[in-house]
């Protein structure tokens, strides 16, 4: 009551309570009285409620949505980086294998070339041996043919000579004589005749 009387003394109009006419009398721009304090408390409560509702309904859900999206994007980026790492590892492994295969291929080719060279030498040696054998066989055959031909010619010469001698003698020669003369003639002709 004391406070009211004090404040009434300071600001008599604004603390006049009761009738509807007071509403018309109430006007202030900056009134430092007890009613302003009540107004302040009332507006304070109103504004706090509005701000808390805005935070609860608007800010927090939207911020959560944005943060979730940010986390999701960060997760996807991390996964992409991880996949990239896996791909890079696979590529490095593939390239390593390709290099190893290239070396291995060279080794195989070298071995093949070496083997081919060895086989080539063996084949040529074998061919040379065979050729030499063929040549030897051919020479032997030629020699045999020559002997054979020599014998035939010698026989024919003797036969012709015998015929000529028979004609000269007059045909009085028996078969045994003919044969003996023929053998002697052949023996006398000898090898010297054919080796010239």
């Amino acid at each position, binding site marked *: 009551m004391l406070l009211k009387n004090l404040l009434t003394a300071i600001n008599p109009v604004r603390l006049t309570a009761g009738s509807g006419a007071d509403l018309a009398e*109430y*006007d202030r*721009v900056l009134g430092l009285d007890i009613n302003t304090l009540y107004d*302040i408390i009332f507006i304070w409560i109103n504004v706090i409620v509005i701000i808390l509702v*805005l935070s609860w309904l608007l800010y927090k*859900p939207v911020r959560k949505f*944005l943060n979730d999206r940010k986390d999701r994007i960060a997760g996807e980026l991390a996964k992409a980086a991880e996949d990239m790492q896996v791909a890079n590892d696979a590529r490095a492994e593939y390239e390593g294998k390709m290099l190893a295969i290239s070396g291995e291929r060279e080794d195989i080719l070298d071995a093949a070339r070496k083997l081919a060279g060895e086989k080539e030498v063996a084949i040529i040696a074998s061919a040379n041996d065979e050729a030499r054998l063929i040549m030897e066989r051919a020479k032997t055959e030629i020699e045999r043919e020559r002997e054979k031909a020599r014998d035939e010619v010698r026989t024919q010469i003797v036969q012709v000579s015998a015929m000529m001698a028979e004609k000269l003698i007059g045909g009085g020669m028996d078969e045994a004589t003919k044969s003996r003369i023929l053998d002697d003639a052949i023996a006398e002709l000898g090898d010297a005749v054919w080796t010239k």
Partner: protein
Amino acid sequence: MNFDIQARWRLYITDNIWINITDTTISTWIVGAVLILLAVVVRVKLKKFKPVPETRFQNIIEALVEFFDNHVTTIMTKKYAHFGAWFFGLFLFLLLANISGIFGLRPPTADFATTFPLAFTTVILMQVIGIRYNMKKGEYVKEFFRPVFIFFPLNVASDISRSISLSLRLFGNMLGGLVLMGLIYGLFPRLVQIGVPGALSLYFDLFVGALHAFIFVTLSMYFLMMKVPETD
């Protein structure tokens, strides 16, 4: 031309205690209703929000929240970014309250009864954040006795005066804009009030309103950060 705050109804608590439903109260309710409606719409539409925004509405909401989130993180660091929830609501309320003059309302912030409790809340939050995060080794209490113990009254007065300076800055600017625009509108006949006064209204109501909402919130955040440990 009357710039005083008018009481429209009176709400009696007892015979001697009553609350005036003033122009400020009604404007506050209207601004609050619009903001809560917006929040409800966002909450409903949030379920349809795409990972990549496809609508202008989603873009605007995301840009607003993201901008404010970054602003809070810049000033208050990530450790205290959870205070952003309060300051975001405060900023939206102040923004719409400051520019509500464009829509013919008496801006709630042109009333000391609105700006003072908001600034006083900042001072309370300063003490809360100081006690919560700077109480180790008695740093919160020691701050009041720096540089020497005789500065204790000055340091206490300094904290209290922040609420007064913060609230009077906003109140004075908004009331100044209200009075100035009232006078300018009064100068022009009704038929030509769309031109020059309209452009000035854009400046005093929209630009100054948005600017001071931003200043109020930014200063509040800085005041809060004055109470946290220096290492933070």
